[in-house]
């Protein structure tokens, strides 16, 4: 234990030096060939792109070309290898723009993230349907599932019992499919994001568009089925009258609260996964950044970086689960709050009875 702590301390001290040395290199202008360009290295991994870059061998990029789909005076579909031929180019953010006007077309290309989304969704559907099929082929009253159905059953039971039933309360069955889908979607994509090579490695749940969509779903689930009491609490809460009329101070705050809750969900998932990816990439980058500091220093630092990388990867496994758990839990708590019966009313009813 003590030794681990010492190693971690040394690693942290050394890592504190790293940005300084990296910055030094940057002042010399464009990095020389063979040197690591941190910016494109990190943003290339965590960002979206029109091709799926697998690896580079001797400066030759090996990547899977993906489909570009653009609405710009009609539908245009082309491979990402032929962007220039079709009159488009990539802007400084790596987005497709019209080469002549420089404007963004309506762009629904199958990017790296979209392909990853499709694959993980197919995987998710297959996993769940395979588990569901087990129950049709066996008598679940006589035997408990093993293997994949067993694992899925364990997770589903855990999510329903610990999260959904606790958070939503009454009528939890209505929300269980959405919350379970959200949990498994986030969990699976988090896990696939940690896998460093082809089928995984996309930073899907660390992408704001994905977390935005999930947050919107939760927002709708919370507010579309909220009860009378919930809306009364927002627009006419139990506070002194001068707080809500003539200037609707509290209703204003409550209305803002409506949006901050899903917003926090969106940012939490996005930031956690993004930060995790950047941390792992940073730790791995240590190996390449220290390459010219000499074999001795490079070797020892690489060793530390590998140890630290393993630690970060295991931590990310934990985070993958925790973030899925937290998103589902907060969603169900928000749903539960929007359906809570007022306590005073029930008490009154009880006393009148």
């Amino acid at each position, binding site marked *: 234990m003590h030794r681990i702590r010492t190693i971690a301390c040394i690693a942290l001290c050394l890592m504190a030096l790293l940005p300084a040395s990296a910055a030094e290199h940057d002042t010399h202008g464009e990095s020389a060939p063979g040197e690591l360009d941190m910016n494109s290295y990190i943003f290339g991994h965590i960002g*979206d792109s029109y091709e799926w870059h697998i690896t580079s061998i001797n400066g030759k990029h090996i990547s899977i070309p993906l489909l570009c789909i653009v609405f710009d005076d009609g539908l245009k579909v082309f491979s990402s290898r032929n962007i220039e031929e079709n009159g488009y180019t990539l802007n400084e953010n790596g987005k497709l723009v019209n080469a002549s006007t420089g404007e963004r077309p309506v762009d*629904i290309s199958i990017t790296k*993230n979209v392909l990853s989304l499709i694959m993980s969704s197919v995987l998710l559907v297959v996993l769940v349907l395979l588990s569901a099929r087990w129950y049709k082929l066996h008598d679940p009253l006589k035997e408990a599932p093993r293997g994949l159905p067993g694992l899925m059953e364990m997770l589903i039971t855990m999510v329903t019992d610990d999260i959904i039933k606790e958070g939503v309360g009454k009528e939890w069955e209505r929300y269980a499919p959405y919350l379970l889908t959200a949990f498994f979607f986030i969990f699976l994509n988090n896990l696939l994001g940690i896998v460093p090579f082809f089928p995984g490695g996309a930073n899907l749940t660390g992408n704001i568009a994905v977390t935005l969509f999930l947050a919107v779903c939760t927002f709708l689930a919370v507010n579309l089925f909220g009860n009378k009491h919930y809306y009364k609490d927002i627009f006419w809460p139990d506070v002194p009258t001068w707080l809500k009329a003539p200037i609707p101070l509290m209703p204003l705050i409550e209305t803002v609260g409506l949006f901050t809750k899903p917003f926090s969900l969106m940012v939490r998932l996005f930031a956690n996964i993004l930060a995790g990816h950047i941390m792992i990439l940073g730790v791995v980058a240590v190996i390449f950044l220290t390459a010219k500091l000499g074999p001795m220093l490079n070797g020892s630092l690489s060793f530390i970086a590998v140890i630290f990388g393993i630690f970060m990867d295991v931590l990310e496994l934990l985070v993958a689960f925790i973030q899925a758990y937290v998103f589902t839990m907060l969603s169900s708590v928000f749903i539960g709050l929007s359906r809570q019966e007022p306590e005073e009313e029930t008490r009154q009813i009880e006393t009148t009875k």
Partner: protein
Amino acid sequence: MSLITPDFGLFFWMTLIFAIVFFILAKFGFPIITGMVKKRSERIEQSLRDAEEAQKALKELAAEHKRMIEEARKEQSRILNEAASTGDQIVAEAKQQAREQTAAMIEKAREEIRIEQDTARRQISNEIATLSVEVAEKLLRGHLDSDERQSELIDRLIEEARASHKSVN
């Protein structure tokens, strides 16, 4: 920063794909699994309850069994006691009867003895009377050998009878 601006394309695909995934899973995936899990847990609960009930019944049965054995043992000892007491009673009764019979026999014997005694006494007194009459006859025969004496006696007897008659009157 492109990182924090949501990309329309990805959002579009996300909406589409998530909706499809949600539809499939909500229709054919999760409800089946959760339903079966619920059914099974209910079944397990039911089985547990049944087992508990069965155990309780078994316990009751065992108690009943014990109670019956206890009762049988009590009955047995009771019967034994009864038999013993009945025996005692019979013996006592027999003794009593024997005693009574003996007493009756003794009484009867005594009675007979008394009767015999009475008879004997009466016979003896008869004999004595006869004897004394005979003796008196013999005596009288001796005294009344002359006429004078006979008349004297007759007079005296008449006198006596008169006196006694007077005294009676």
